[in-house]
């Protein structure tokens, strides 16, 4: 393959050759090359097949907007599809593969689609794949997916790490081209904290491809000097390889830094990409402008390229575009390219300019064809000739490279991310950023400026203005005289070349051509948003960066209106695609969410606990013993052991809140529906907390430690919510109350010791007398342990219905205290039990949890009707509790349920029907809220919410599980299955 590398020049390091492969073929490039420039240097023009027609495609741009040169990079787990070759830095060992071709890039069977093209026009999917509907999933969709695909993602796990970081600055400069550098230098010299973000590896933007001189310095050297000065300042952070992709509320900018996407083997401890969230007081949008393609027949044949891109490859990468070139331009930028080509000895056959006067300062050798247009390009996999129409007719020119420039569109995406609409300018034939943006100031080419001098001056001025507005004494930076600058004459508007015979592409990536847009208007889809969806123009991964303005222009032409009237589609983040890896950062695997560890976690682990996730906690579910067959056997043993000996259970994850201050009792009295004002010191009370709508929110016990100090427990699920609620009540409803609230959930390791032998075991480690007289039911006091070695809190409360206590000790001592209890209780049969056994024990006693307190029940529904105080003037939920619907007689009420045949079972969630009633919504009587196997009853037992359930004890019903189509004959009963007189509690 012929080398197109020029013998000298460019910003590449010829002493550092890099070997890489494209479609398995070994090639050589240099450090400083992009994958695209290296491919071009190797004479590789055909780099991909188009989406729909599988047309041969070459490299079109030298930047972020590239629609054609999408490749799959890397191998194995690091395979990455749809990488723009123009944005991929070359590195040694890089492996790139073309996409959307089979069996090979040069011979692609899908290209037959091109022959079918009359059937593949706009709206093709809607019109073709209509019928029969059943064909969609099995026939049409797989066909479309196979034929019109991008690259394939790997199924292997991503081996690399990603990272997120916040940053703060006075001024964020987006884009380090002429305007950005001028703004950054201006504000940095004034002392502002600055972040400069540029998407290229080397900052400088178009200066790197420019041949003008500034103060006698070549543009790239000038850029290097500016960058060196910025890097030397402590108040400047330079982020290269960083794309600012979005502008968000609060002047937060999202940016992605490609930290290690340019290396063969990333260092594993360093992220490959870093997502920045930059909080900026102000920002300069110096994102430059996108050159527009021209729409003529065959404008996608490899060898046709944007003029600016050709200039960049030529000057920056020292790559010749071809042997004989032509330039089709509607503005003067094409002439700068012509000069550069000729300086480097490359033949420019002709410059085709549709204007009457253009390039008047051009003195080169190329034929100047004015009032002329390229109508068609010819060639299969590489350009061979172009047709030119002039006033004198048509002429065919043999060329192997064609540059095109239809003018410049400011890159204003970010300026529109927060709802601003682009403003059409007749003067520049472009959409300009909306005026009056707060916190974001577009500068330079992003405002429609063209020449270097104007961009530098504008950047400096806007940088100074922003710095001054932030309180810095800034004056605009000034630069030396510029020689060889581009002419700022505006482009002639040319949305398409009349008389083109071949397909004239508007959206390269989605294969939308000029006729598709005409068709869309003809078929009534001329609105810009409709046309976009009907033709898919602008919907590819490049989001129409190159194509949108031409599409808008064509729609405007077809509708006979101005582009201003057509308007644009909405710009939304992200400016360019952002990987899921970068978005998720480190939040995957065990870093997906934090684990909250109980202080007794280690103790439970040592005793063989099986853990279950409960919110962020890991709770011990049961403690299997050798020889037990399945979890039920373990749970049954734990349950029976609590009822016959004693068990110990970790309840540290219950919410614990300390409520202090002179008005603590008053606050409790207002947040619980039952009375708390007169709770004696040293006593615990069960409390029900309602929502303002009258439904129960949470329950738990609260005890009074001292006159002005209470200790509240909440359910595990609502621990955080209850504290938020109490703070809401204290701070917003009754700020006049002097209460002080603190979560002490993590301060205490808390264990329940339940069972007839619990007192005996506890007494061995507790110094004070905890006999029934000295420490009766609902007693709650500070206790001393191990002969004064430790202080804890003991509560005589019971969820199991047994004689039971909860012991709280400072968390770090929990592990040792639990082990000491295990030791003390060994001869009495003390065993650990988990939440499964806890659940069985509480269902046997009819104690409710959030299975029953499910947001639909009021106190009466659960048999707590008398708890809701009528004497208190106010409490949360009081006003709404008396509503008709909440006092109706046929409300669901808590009831027990057992199967008629102990061998039968049912599950929570199953519905209850009257006996023999059909399974219909109308016949629904309620549902099972909790169920478990009770080793005491010898069958499944359940709690249920059933209409008038409290009056229906003894009634036979049918339990219907619609998911499993199961019917179980059952009987309603009192919601208490064990020790109905509660004698054990007080024993």
């Amino acid at each position: 393959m012929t080398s197109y590398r020029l013998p000298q020049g460019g910003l590449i390091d010829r002493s550092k050759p890099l070997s890489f492969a494209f479609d398995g073929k070994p090639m050589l490039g240099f450090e400083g090359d992009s994958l695209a420039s290296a491919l071009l240097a190797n004479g590789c023009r055909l780099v991909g097949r188009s989406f729909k027609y599988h047309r041969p495609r070459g490299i079109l741009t030298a930047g972020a907007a590239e629609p054609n040169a999408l490749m799959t990079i890397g191998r194995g787990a690091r395979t990455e599809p749809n990488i723009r070759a123009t944005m991929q830095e070359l590195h040694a060992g890089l492996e790139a593969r073309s996409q959307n071709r089979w069996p090979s890039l040069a011979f692609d069977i899908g290209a037959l689609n091109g022959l079918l093209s009359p059937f593949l026009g706009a709206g093709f999917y809607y019109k073709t794949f209509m019928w029969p509907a059943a064909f969609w999933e099995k026939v049409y969709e797989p066909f479309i997916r196979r034929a019109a695909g991008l690259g394939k993602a790997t199924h292997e796990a991503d081996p690399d790490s990603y990272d997120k970081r916040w940053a703060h600055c006075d001024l964020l400069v987006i884009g380090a081209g002429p305007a950005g550098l001028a703004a950054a230098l201006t504000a940095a010299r004034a002392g502002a904290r600055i972040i400069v973000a540029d998407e290229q590896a080397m900052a400088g933007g178009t200066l790197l491809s420019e041949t003008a001189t500034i103060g006698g310095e070549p543009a790239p050297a000038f850029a290097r000097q500016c960058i060196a000065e910025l890097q030397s300042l402590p108040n400047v952070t330079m982020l290269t390889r960083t794309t600012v992709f979005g502008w968000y509320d609060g002047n937060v900018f999202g940016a992605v830094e490609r930290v290690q996407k340019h290396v063969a083997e990333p260092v594993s401890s360093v992220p490959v990409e870093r997502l920045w969230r930059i909080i900026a007081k102000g920002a300069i949008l110096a994102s430059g402008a996108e050159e527009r393609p021209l729409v003529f027949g065959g404008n996608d044949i490899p060898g046709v390229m944007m003029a600016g891109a050709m200039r960049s490859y030529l000057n920056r990468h020292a790559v010749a575009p071809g042997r004989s070139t032509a330039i089709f331009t509607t503005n003067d930028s094409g002439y700068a390219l012509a000069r550069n080509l000729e300086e480097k000895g490359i033949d420019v056959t002709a410059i085709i300019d549709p204007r009457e006067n253009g390039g008047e300062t051009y003195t080169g050798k190329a034929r100047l064809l004015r009032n002329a247009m390229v109508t068609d390009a010819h060639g299969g996999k590489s350009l061979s000739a172009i047709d030119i129409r002039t006033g004198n007719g048509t002429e065919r020119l043999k060329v192997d490279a064609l540059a095109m420039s239809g003018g410049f569109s400011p890159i204003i995406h970010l300026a529109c991310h927060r709802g601003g609409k682009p403003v059409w300018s007749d003067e520049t034939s472009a959409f300009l950023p909306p005026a009056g943006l707060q916190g974001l100031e577009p500068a330079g080419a992003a405002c429609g400026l063209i020449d270097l001098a104007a961009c530098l001056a504008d950047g400096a001025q806007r940088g100074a203005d922003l710095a001054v507005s932030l309180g810095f004494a800034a004056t605009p930076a000034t630069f030396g005289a510029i020689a060889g600058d581009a002419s700022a004459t505006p482009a002639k508007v040319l949305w398409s070349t009349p008389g083109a015979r071949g397909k004239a592409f508007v959206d390269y990536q989605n294969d939308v051509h000029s006729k598709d847009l005409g068709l869309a208007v003809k078929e009534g889809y001329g609105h810009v948003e409709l046309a976009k969806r009907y033709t898919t123009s602008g919907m590819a991964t490049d989001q129409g960066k190159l194509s949108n303005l031409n599409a808008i222009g064509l729609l405007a032409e077809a509708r006979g209106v101005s582009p201003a009237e057509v308007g644009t589609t909405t710009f939304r983040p992200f400016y360019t695609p952002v990987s899921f890896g970068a978005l998720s950062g480190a939040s995957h695997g065990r870093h997906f969410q934090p684990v909250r560890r109980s202080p007794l976690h280690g103790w439970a682990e040592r005793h063989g606990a099986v853990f279950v996730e409960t919110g962020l906690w890991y709770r011990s579910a049961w403690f299997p013993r050798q020889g037990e067959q399945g979890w039920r056997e373990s749970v049954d043993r734990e349950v029976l052991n609590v009822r016959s000996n004693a068990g110990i259970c970790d309840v540290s994850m219950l919410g614990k809140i300390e409520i202090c201050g002179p008005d603590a009792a008053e606050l409790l009295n207002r947040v619980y529906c039952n009375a708390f004002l007169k709770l004696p010191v040293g006593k615990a009370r069960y409390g029900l907390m309602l929502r303002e709508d009258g439904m129960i929110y949470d329950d738990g016990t609260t005890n009074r430690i001292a006159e002005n100090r209470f200790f509240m427990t909440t359910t595990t699920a609502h621990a955080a919510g209850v504290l938020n609620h109490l703070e809401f009540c204290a701070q917003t409803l009754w700020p006049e109350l002097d209460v002080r609230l603190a979560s002490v959930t993590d301060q205490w390791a808390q264990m329940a010791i339940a069972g007839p032998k619990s007192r005996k075991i506890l007494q061995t480690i507790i110094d004070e007398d905890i006999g029934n007289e000295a420490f009766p039911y609902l007693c709650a006091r500070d206790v001393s342990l191990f002969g004064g070695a430790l202080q804890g809190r003991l509560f005589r409360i019971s969820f199991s219905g047994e004689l039971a206590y909860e012991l709280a000790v400072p968390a770090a001592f929990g592990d040792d205290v639990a082990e000491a209890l295990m030791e003390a209780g060994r001869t009495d049969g003390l065993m650990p039990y988990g939440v499964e056994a806890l659940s069985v024990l509480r269902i046997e006693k009819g104690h409710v949890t959030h299975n029953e307190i499910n947001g639909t029940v009021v106190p009466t529904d659960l048999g707590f009707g008398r708890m809701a105080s009528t004497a208190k003037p106010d409490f949360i939920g009081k006003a709404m509790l008396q509503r008709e619907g909440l006092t109706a007689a046929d409300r669901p009420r808590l009831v027990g349920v057992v199967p008629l045949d102990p061998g039968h079972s049912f599950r929570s969630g199953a519905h209850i029907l009257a006996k023999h009633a059909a399974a219909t919504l109308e016949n629904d009587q309620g549902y099972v809220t909790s169920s478990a196997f009770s080793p005491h009853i010898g069958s499944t037992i359940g709690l249920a919410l059933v209409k008038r359930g409290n009056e229906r004890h003894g009634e036979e019903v049918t339990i219907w599980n619609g998911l499993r189509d199961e019917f179980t004959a059952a009987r309603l009963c009192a919601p208490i299955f064990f020790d109905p007189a509660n004698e054990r509690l007080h024993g």
Partner: protein
Amino acid sequence: MADIRSLPALADRRPLTSPQVTLSALPEGTVLQVIAGPKTPDLTRLAGEAGLVARAIAPGQWFLVGNRPTAHQDMRRLLAMLEPDASGIDQSHGRVRMLMEGPMAAAVLSKGTAVDLDPTVFPPGTTAATLVGHVSAHLTRLDNEAFEITVLRGFAAALWDDLALMCAEYL
């Protein structure tokens, strides 16, 4: 029987050290949460007498912290001294403190918190209550390159592991 041992929450986490950043657990000493009523007591004096340092964590709220545990009787005295203007809540076991130091400490923490850690904005001696990654924590700048991170005991190990990952590129 009186020999009852405490088990630090980060007992099994070894310090991470490099010239760029170090992460270590601080001793589980004293953390006393103080919440004031309408009148604010003289906390600096009180803390000084108790050998503790006061960190303002919210309007009318402080952590009084120290590296040594406070004996039960001393804690009771301290709580009594605070009343009635303020209430003290012993969080010595409820909170775990870590120390992150080194030239990259602020950069590492900025992976987790949106607080501006520039020393001119967040000078030594200031405390911020903030999310560090997924976990709520209190950050105190001890000096330009040293931060104390105070977190709920239950999240200590998880936050440590997250911080260790954030440090990884500088180790």
